[in-house]
């Protein structure tokens, strides 16, 4: 192992509250070293995405990390920052690297995989005789050759926005398209740059996957629950709830997904440690979870569909059933008294019996 950074320290660094120093800039020199010592190349491809994950990654102020990512690590291809384009990119930077390094390169995927219309909703290039290469084919071709696939963003990890109903392009998460290759999910809309850099650094430094949770996320970043570390937690404990945005109080009733959202934004903070979602008065929308964004973003509990374009709340169902139960009981009670199963008649009977 070329690096002087032990895995234990690495994990401590990643999981610790890193707002004080930038994780990315701390890791840069170690990554340089690992690459110099021959770490596997990294190919980055984009499907049905908005490029937001890449933008988030490049949003690290430290110049060093940009250099690392664009020049130093063998990031042989990135759609937005590579000089290679067109045939050169597809043939040389993607297919050739994949074929010459079988099972020894990492594939970063940003965006979901459109599978409708034979994948033609996302064309990434063409073959020599002018046939389109669709993203679905690209990812099947080279994904199966990768040592591991690293999904950056909720779209490639779980489907995200493009795969949300009605999903006309039939977008799917990468895991549904490429099987039998280890997959690391780094979800988020977008993911924090530290999560991306930290994950890449881990695979390059240790040539191994970080420890993952059941949704495939590196535990070092996704083990904590927003709700448990929220700056507004005191309000929750004291049952002070905000009724509108801008009010003080816990924002659960405004639809905050903090209790279900796993990530460390509470301590890592965004924009180089400036602020985070709840810190600037927004609710957590749970962008790192597989259900994002299909759940009602600003409602505490979803309504339940009971028919076409009709939905009811759980309370409405409860109240209707409660009313029915009360009516049933009242009716039965009346029946019991009329037929004499209980009440005065029965008492008479009992007396007769005793006599």
């Amino acid at each position, binding site marked *: 192992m070329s690096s002087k950074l032990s895995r234990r320290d690495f994990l401590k660094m990643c999981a610790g509250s890193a707002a004080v120093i930038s994780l990315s800039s701390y890791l840069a020199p170690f990554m340089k070293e690992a690459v110099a010592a021959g770490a596997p190349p990294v190919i980055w491809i984009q499907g049905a995405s908005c490029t937001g994950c890449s933008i988030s990654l490049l949003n690290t102020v430290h110049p060093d990390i940009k250099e690392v990512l664009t020049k130093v690590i063998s990031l042989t291809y990135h759609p937005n920052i590579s000089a290679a384009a067109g045939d050169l990119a597809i043939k040389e930077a993607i297919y050739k690297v994949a074929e010459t390094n079988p099972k020894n390169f990492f594939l970063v995927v940003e965006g979901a995989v459109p599978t409708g219309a034979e994948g033609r909703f996302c064309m990434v290039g063409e073959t020599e005789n002018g046939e389109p290469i669709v993203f679905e084919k690209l990812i099947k071709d080279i994904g199966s050759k990768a040592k591991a696939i690293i999904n950056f963003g909720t779209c490639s990890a779980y489907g995200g926005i493009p795969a949300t109903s009605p999903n006309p392009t039939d977008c799917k998460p990468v895991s549904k398209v490429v099987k039998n290759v280890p997959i690391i999910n780094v979800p988020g809309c977008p993911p924090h740059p530290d999560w991306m850099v930290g994950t890449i650094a881990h695979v390059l430094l240790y040539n191994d996957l970080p420890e993952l949770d059941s949704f495939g996320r590196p535990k070092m970043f996704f083990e904590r629950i927003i709700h448990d570390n929220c700056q507004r937690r005191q309000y929750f404990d004291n049952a002070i709830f905000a009724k509108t945005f801008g009010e003080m109080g816990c924002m659960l009733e405004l639809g905050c997904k903090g209790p279900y959202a796993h990530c460390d934004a509470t301590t890592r903070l965004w924009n180089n440690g400036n602020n985070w979602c709840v810190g600037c008065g927004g609710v957590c929308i749970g962008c790192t979870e597989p259900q994002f964004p299909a759940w009602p973003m600003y409602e505490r509990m979803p309504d339940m569909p009971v028919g076409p374009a009709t939905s009811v709340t759980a309370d409405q169902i409860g109240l209707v059933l*409660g009313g029915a139960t009360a009516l049933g009981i009242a009716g039965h009670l009346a029946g019991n008294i009329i037929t004499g199963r209980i009440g005065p008649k029965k008492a008479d009977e009992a007396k007769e019996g005793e006599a």
Partner: protein
Amino acid sequence: MFKKMEERHSLWIRIFHWTNMIAITMLILTGFYIHAPQTFRLFGSMDTARGFHFAMAYVLVVGVLGRVYYAIAAKDAKNIVYSPVEDTKKLPSMLKYYLFLADDHPYYGKYNPGQKGMYTGWLVMAILMIITGFILYKPHLFLGLSGWFGGFLTVRLIHYIITWLFVLTVMLHVYLDVAEGIPILKSMFTGKIPADFHHGYHEDEA
């Protein structure tokens, strides 16, 4: 004059009945507070309500496990578990009786098919509550399970809907017991019931 009494509920049955009743009642009350603290102002703070909720959750776990063990060990399961074959056959006569279409019904054993159905349903509901509750309580520990249910929001909805089911079925349960007669109610305290208690069937049919 002493009435001749028979044993109806063993001590263990009574203990589990009342601990489970207390646990479920407290879970329902604290649960509604957790759901809507501003509407359902029963507790001082989320801290108190959640503290009770989780403490009672453990009581419920012990109560459910204990009751299931007792049902198996004391061969009491046949009394309370709905048998899809046997009990479904008895259902029509019971429904007729409850809908006042018949004045009496055959003797069903300790409980009629409706009661057995409800008690079995409660076991299923309690287990679902425990599973969904612990997923919500320790989201990270039970992450995989939450996915199995379709995500945390669904888990939460299930937890909440079953709460309502508990409220409704408990209402029914209390009513039906009281309606069947005060001695039935008493028997859950004393364990005994008058030997000549009329269960709503004719002696000669029994």
